[in-house]
Each structure stands twice: as C-alpha cells, then as structure tokens.
C-alpha cells in the first residue's frame, strides 16, 4: 500500500504526520476538518473518496485540523463523538485491510503481537490498556499465561479500535489557536442542535455505581454495552419515564434516538430485573462497598448508612 493511501486511512500514523508536514493550514483544510467533526456528530463514519495526491494530503491534514478545533473547543461531548466515529471508521478500514496492515497500525499504539506456542498473544499491560470492560474481554475469561493474553484476529482489531478511540479522545489543549480554527469552532458550536439535555436526578438517591454512570453520562463519556443495559434497567425499575431516560442517554457520544427507544421498550417488555451486585461487579461497574446485594436495594438503606457509604 502506498504511504499516502495508508495515511489517508490511518491519519494518526507517523506516515500521515510526515506527509502533512508541509501542508499549510489553509481555510479549505480547516473547513474539511470542521466537516469531519460534523460527520461525527451525524454518526457518518464513511470515508471520503479522494483521488488526486493534493486532495489526499488535504484530507489527511483535515484530521489534524479537526483535532486542533477540538483542542481549542475543549468540549468533551463533541470530542467523544469524534473519537468514537474516527475509531469506527478505522475499524471498517481494518476489516478491509490485510493482516500486515492491522499489525502495522497496532504497533503504532505499542500493541506488539507475538506468537507463543503457535498462538497469537499480546502482553498483559497492553491488553489491560486497550480491552473494553465487556464480559467477553474480562481478563478472567481469557487465556492468560505468563503475562501474555491470547487474542483472535477479531480481538486484535477491537483492541486497535479502542486504542484509536483513546488516542483521538486524548486531545492536547490548543492555546492561542489560529483565527481560522477559532472561527470554525464557533461555527460548529452554533450549528449544534440546541436541545441541551439536562439531567435532573437528585444525587444521593442512587447507589454509587449508578451515580458514577450518571457522572459519565453528564461528561458525555462513552459507556459499553453492559453499562448501558444495567443503567437502563435500573432507571426503568425506579419508574423513571422513558423520556427522562432518553434524556440521559442523549448525552452519550453515539446516542441514537431510535435504538434507545427500541431498547427501552424491549427492557420494559421483558421486565428484566436489576442485575445483582455480583453481576454488576463482573461488568466492572461496582465502585463501592454497600453490601446491599442488589443496587435496587439501595433505596431500603437508612439515610445515615447511605451517607456513610458515599463518604
């Protein structure tokens, strides 16, 4: 694969950095960067088709420009959305590219795949860093020997996807941004849908694990599937209305009205019970020692005890 094509697909790579070294931050590059962010807000992770070399360069540079805009804005909501979208785009490229490319991209994040006893493995600290906290990826359900975790080709791609998300989300602060970046940022904010969601749930009314999820939602952080499911079941069980729950979920970077509506009605229809503390713990979401057995039983605790637990 040509370096420019590689850089186009993987704009965070060192190849990309080298290619755009001499590209000026023109208005059109900034505009492309802003467009890239808008695509993320629309959840459109398709790749833009560019053919000639100079447009390729501009397209690669648009990633850097987008990051500058985000670094200037410092808005966690937009940044999370952008990170999720870019990582999804990378994932679909990885699915199309061969094994060699996947390894090349992985190595960018220090993910070194090794062969041990004919199995594909990566070292434990790296695995911990980039695996998501879903049951399938929990360390306890993996083959772990002598500091190495066995992974499948698909696992590797998922780890890279998460590495990209984390990398993109970690945007350096841009102080004294160029005028063009500032303007693009302003326009972006102006174009944001104005339905600012407000979360109005009295704190202390919920167990610490739920408070933490609320906190994450407020900060527009991404939640994994088990977290979303648990959160939704809990909120449903305390008789929070669908509209209010949707209001909370609208804060998540990859919120989708239809999916959320469908999932909430599914939860209601099936009448799921709130998972036990042990299950919540297995999702990696337990963050305190309440000894209630089930998060829903939090509401039976005395105010005194609640205060003690919340510190």
């Amino acid at each position, binding site marked *: 694969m040509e370096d420019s094509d590689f850089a186009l697909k993987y704009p965070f790579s060192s190849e990309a950095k080298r290619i755009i070294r001499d590209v000026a931050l023109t208005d059109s590059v900034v505009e492309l960067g802003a467009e890239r962010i808008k695509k993320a807000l629309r959840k459109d992770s398709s790749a833009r088709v560019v053919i000639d070399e100079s447009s390729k360069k501009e397209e690669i540079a648009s990633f850097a420009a987008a990051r500058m805009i985000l670094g200037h804005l410092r808005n966690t909501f937009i940044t999370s959305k952008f990170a999720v979208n870019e990582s999804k785009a990378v994932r679909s490229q990885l699915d199309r590219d061969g094994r060699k490319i996947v390894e090349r991209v992985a190595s960018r994040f220090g993910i070194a795949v090794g062969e041990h006893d004919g199995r594909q493995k990566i*070292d*434990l*600290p*790296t695995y*911990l*860093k980039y695996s998501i*906290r879903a*049951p*399938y990826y*929990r*360390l*306890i*359900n*993996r*083959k*772990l*020997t*002598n*500091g*190495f975790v066995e992974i499948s080709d698909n696992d590797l791609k998922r780890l890279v996807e998460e590495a990209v998300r984390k990398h993109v989300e970690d945007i350096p602060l841009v102080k004294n941004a160029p005028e063009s970046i500032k303007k693009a940022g302003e326009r972006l904010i102006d174009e944001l849908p104005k339905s600012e969601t407000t979360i109005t749930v009295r704190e202390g009314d919920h167990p610490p694990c739920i408070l933490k999820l609320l906190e994450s939602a407020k900060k527009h952080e991404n939640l994994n599937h088990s977290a979303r499911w648990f959160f939704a079941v809990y909120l449903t069980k305390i008789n929070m209305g669908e509209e209010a729950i949707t209001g909370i979920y609208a804060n998540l970077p990859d919120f989708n009205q239809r999916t959320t509506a469908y999932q909430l009605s599914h939860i209601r229809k099936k009448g799921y019970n709130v998972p036990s503390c*042990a299950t919540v*713990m*297995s*999702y*990696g979401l337990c963050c305190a*020692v309440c000894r209630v057995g089930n998060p829903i039983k939090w509401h039976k605790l005395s105010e005194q005890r609640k205060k003690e637990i919340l510190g």
Partner: protein
Amino acid sequence: MKEQDLKRMKKIFASYYETAEFSIPEIEKREFGIGNVKKIDARHLDFPNVQSFRSYLCNNTPMFVSHSAAYYEFPAATPMQKKQWKGADLIFDLDIHAEGKYGPYRKLDEVKEDLDRLVNDFIRNDFGISQEHIIMVFSGNRGYHVHVRAPGFTELGGDERRELVDYVMGQGLNYREFFTFSEHRPPKMFGPRPDEGGYRGRMARRTVDLLMKNPSAISRLFANEKKREFFIGGIKKGNWSKTSLKLKDLRERLKIVADTLPVSSVNTDVGVTQDLSKLIRVPNSIHGETGLIAKIVDDISSFEPLRDAVLESKEIMKIKFTEDVPEVALMGESRSFRKDEAKELPLPAAMFYVLKGSAVIS
C-alpha cells in the same frame, strides 16, 4: 494511652529508626504521610533521600509512617493534580477479618496461604512478573502488602488495576466460556487442558482432582473407574466429550468445580489496588498499634510475624494489664493475661500490649 507511656514508646521507635534499613525505590518521587492519632494525620510530605527521611523519623517519631505507591514529579505539591503522577507500584493488600481485638493474631497463618497463592499462582505464573519485581511486606498488624514494581504495570490506571484485582478475586468468572461445542456428529465439547495457565488450567486441574477424590460428585457415572479414566484422558487433551453424558448437561454439572475456583483466590482489599494515590505503610517502619515492624518477607513459609517482626531488644519492661487478654502466641510463647496482673515482659511483648491499649507501663 498515658502521655508518659506514649513518650516512652516514641523513644523506643526513635532508637530503632536510627539504624533501621530502608530501601525505598525512588524515594524522592514519593509522597509521605505520617500519623499519631490516626494512621494518617498529615500527608504531602517529601524527602530527597533516606538520610533526611531517617532524621525526620528520629526527631519527630510519628506512630505511623506511609509512602505513596505512586511516583510524582512534585510529591509534596497540593492539590493532588499538581503532583503530576508518573506511575505507581501495583499494591495488593491482604487483611484478616476476625472478631475481637486479638482474634486476627490467631489467624495470621491463614493469610499466609493466601499470600503464597497470590504471589506464586497469580502474580508470577499468570501475570508473568518475576520475583525481582515483587516484595512482600508484613503490614505490622494483621495482614500483608505485596508491592509489584514491574515495567508496564506501574503505568496502569485505576480501572486496569481493578481488572487485575477482579481477576485475582475471581470476580465475573464465566466458566461456561471455557467450553466450545463442535457442530459435527458425534457432538464434541472442547475445553481447557490441565497444563494451561490461568483459570482455564485451574479449572481442568480441579476437575481432575475432584474426579479422583470424589468420583461421583460430578456424575455417578464416574464412580465407574473405566468411565472416569476415559473421561480424564480426554480432559488432558482438552477434549471433554469422552463420556456418554449429554455435553450441555455436563457443562452445567461442572459448575460445582467452577464455584471452588474463586474460593481459592485471594480476598484482596479492592480499594488499595485501585486507588492511584494510596499511601501504604513504609516497609521496615513500625506499626504504631502493635510495635511490630512492617518487615519485608523473604521466605513466606518460614516467616512468623509474631516472632520475626518484633524489635530486637534484650530489655525487660514492667507493665500492668488493664483488661483481660486472651491467649496470643507472641515471641514463641502462648500466654493469656488477667486484668490488674503485673508482669515483667520482654520489651517487644510489653510494647505490643501497651500499644494495643490492654496494659500500662508500671
């Protein structure tokens, strides 16, 4: 404790600190905390080297002294964010939970077994960390701390450390995922082999163990030696289908094995490992509640905290008990005491009871 007793204790502490051995890696990057009333009354202290730390201990002599598991660019800076976190040792805390003031001291052996398993089975075998990066420390009271300082692990975040603790505690273990079924006829179930690492290997080894010790625990079928041996032979190759049992049923029956896996795991204090700014007792400092040294343990099997972690002293101290004390095996001697009893005891033993609040110096 009486004012003059406390003064006396501090004097003994101070004379120990004059020559105590401290090897605190990257001491200049650690935050220190000291305590007299509580375990930590003041924190955000820093010391450029062991000498200055030692002279602080000799001159001020706190009852408790801790250092951060973390390394910071500016360890004394406040608030926390200004310290600039550079990494942290991975800490595991093993504590005994027992009733009564002296209950834990009778169960110190139990936690030793857990310590052995934690270090050898989990940290060394599964996590692949070599012995040179691990230190085991008696907490000075009723448990042990394991400090791990291995490349790659010191940079882990709280969430990632939590994953390691959950692993050690067997949280979220879904043993059913260890097994896969083949679509072909006859049906087959593949699972872990005894020579595999981690929980998978443990699952296979425990199943074989159980089949040998209690053949019909999984199914009465295995009371038949031939059928049992045939099944075990398959497990050794990772083929769990060498039986006439329905394979999906068999997998469910194996739950009784899976349930024992977490029990053998270590009950580790979750908060300590996860908290990136946690302060932990300085190895080789004295625990102010017992007068015992938070001693670095080289050989777990031969270490007896109530014998090996006491101060070296030939002195005798006269004390008077202010309450009944049940039998404790201190310094190789099991003794109990009655209220108002006056005794002459070796200094470390006398200190132990005075600091526990069961006696006064007479």
